[in-house]
């Protein structure tokens, strides 16, 4: 594979053991140039460790890490063409914002006028012009994050790593930053690799994502693929909510003992006498619980033949009052058979 067609990042069967604990267990992954890639998983799943191995702060116990075709497994972090935005931003408190941002260039002994120009450029990119003279202690959380971003991007790395960058921000700010990060990535054109435990964030921002669980990658794909066609039980349950069908219930609804899953929003809630669509599967039951969530209502339905299903319906023409008296109501559930996904594991 020539350097031109080599993927931006490549993990080749990478493992990281801490004594008995396998933080990362045989991960192989390829990330293409210019991708916005997410590593998604619960805490302890190994995603952060993989990021750190790419950055150079951890050394794999086995396997190799490649950057643009070059084996960097043994290289210290300061020799890799990668920069990181840390979870706690890690700004240097004794330096001004400008000095913080310029740090990478100062180390490389770039000429002063050039540094100044690029610092201004970087601060403009993150929408913090004229903040150069301030100190990190004077900035808000969101502002610090932008400075951290500028500090990393100014070095024009070929890959940018972001370690749970939006975790410390409140909801509104987080959504705003998601949009901005996407825009910046498109503008700068480099590969972004970010780690998160928030599946909504991963779905919203990434071009492709990898779902981690207990040190292994369970699925890699676009957000649509991972959401609509989950491969394993874990992925189905972690990315969005789902109804897990096993045993008896699975046998009845799918014809095989499972495991299988169907998303709550793919099940239609009908009145008992209403007609189902052609080709739809049906089941009858009664509503055990209805939780009004503003935008939609989540129902838990006890099936007549046993088992229960969660159903989510948009509140198109229903409201809180309806939800309140829905309990006990007889309903009929209908769904497309293709909405049921067979799962592994």
């Amino acid at each position, binding site marked *: 594979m020539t350097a031109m067609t080599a993927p931006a990042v490549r993990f080749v069967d990478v493992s990281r053991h801490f004594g008995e604990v396998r933080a990362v267990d045989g991960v192989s992954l390829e990330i293409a140039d210019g991708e916005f890639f997410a590593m998604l998983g619960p805490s302890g799943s190994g995603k952060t460790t993989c990021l750190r191995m790419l950055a150079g702060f951890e050394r794999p116990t086995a396997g190799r890490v490649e950057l643009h075709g070059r084996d960097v497994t043994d290289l210290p972090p300061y020799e890799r063409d990668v920069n990181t935005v840390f979870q706690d931003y890690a700004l240097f408190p004794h330096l001004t914002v400008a000095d913080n941002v310029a740090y*990478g260039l100062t180390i490389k002994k770039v000429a002063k006028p050039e540094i100044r120009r690029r610092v201004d450029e970087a601060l403009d990119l993150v929408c913090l012009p004229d903040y150069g003279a301030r100190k990190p202690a004077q900035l808000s959380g969101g502002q610090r994050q932008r400075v951290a971003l500028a500090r990393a991007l100014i070095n024009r790395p070929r890959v940018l790593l972001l370690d749970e960058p939006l975790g410390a921000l409140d909801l509104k700010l987080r959504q705003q930053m998601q949009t901005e990060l996407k825009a910046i990535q498109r503008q700068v054109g480099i590969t972004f690799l970010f780690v998160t435990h928030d599946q909504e964030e991963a779905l919203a921002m990434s071009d492709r994502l990898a779902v981690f669980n207990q040190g292994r990658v369970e699925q890699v794909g676009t957000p649509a693929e991972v959401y609509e066609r989950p491969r394993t039980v874990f992925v189905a349950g972690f990315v969005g909510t789902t109804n897990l069908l096993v045993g008896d219930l699975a046998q009845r609804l799918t014809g095989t003992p499972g495991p299988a899953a169907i998303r709550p929003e793919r099940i239609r809630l009908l009145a008992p006498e209403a007609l189902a669509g052609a080709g739809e599967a049906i089941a009858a039951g009664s509503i055990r619980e209805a939780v009004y969530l503003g935008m939609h209502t989540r129902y838990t339905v006890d099936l007549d033949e046993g088992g229960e299903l969660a159903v989510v319906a948009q509140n198109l023409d229903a409201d809180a009052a309806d939800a309140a008296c829905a309990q006990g109501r007889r309903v009929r559930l209908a769904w497309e058979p293709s909405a049921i996904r067979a799962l592994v594991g």
Partner: protein
Amino acid sequence: MRSSVRSKSGSDSRGGERAPLGLKLAALGAILFLHLPLLVVFLYAFTTDEATLTFPPPGLTLRWFSLAWQRADLWQAFSLSLRVAAVSTTVAVVLGTLAALAVVRGRFAGREMVTLLVILPIALPGIVTGIALRSGLALTGLPFSFWTIVAGHGTFCIVTVYNNVAARLRRTGRSQIEASMDLGADTFQTFRRIVLPGLATALLAGGMLAFSLSFDEVIVTTFTAGQQRTLPIWILDQLTRPRDRPVTNVTALFVIAVTTLPILLAHRLSGGGGREER
């Protein structure tokens, strides 16, 4: 919201309130007990009574100050104390910082042991440290000199720097170092540009405490000094041979001043009211 509790041992669950009067008096008493004796010394530095014992002092004078100024042996002792403190502080700063860096940032078994070893010279009674050093040094055949005093002082001063630096390192966290290396700086560059500036005030505070500790030390010094007399040893001699009490009083006042200043500065540098332990 105020309430006054009458009983002495009442615990008021609404904090920030008036403490019971009895408690306040007892606390005040303790504070006075701690500080009044030194004021007595200050007072006696000015008394006209040559034996400087009678209270109230018959008169006040500045005579003793000029007398003290002319005492060559006093200046010698002072100069020795100063030099010992300076060198010991340097040794303590270097060794204490290295040890703190290793223990806080390193991953190895036995970190607790290192901490214990650093604390031991100051945890064991001075006499143990003193006599141990004396017999140890006697074994090597080294003459008791400036350097043996420094050997003693340096050893127990390490802990003050170590504690300060370790506390600061723990507060700082690793991510700054990683960020620096991520941006292209190797270990040495990171140390120079990021770690050291972050430690600056902790080093200063620890160093000043070490200076104060060394300047004032007397127990271990009696064992490790040969013929030399540091200032505290000079005062110690005066205790058992009370000839020049007025001059001793002046010296005492001076020593308090010299050792108080670094403590105040160190307190300010540590963020005032910090929990740095001895």
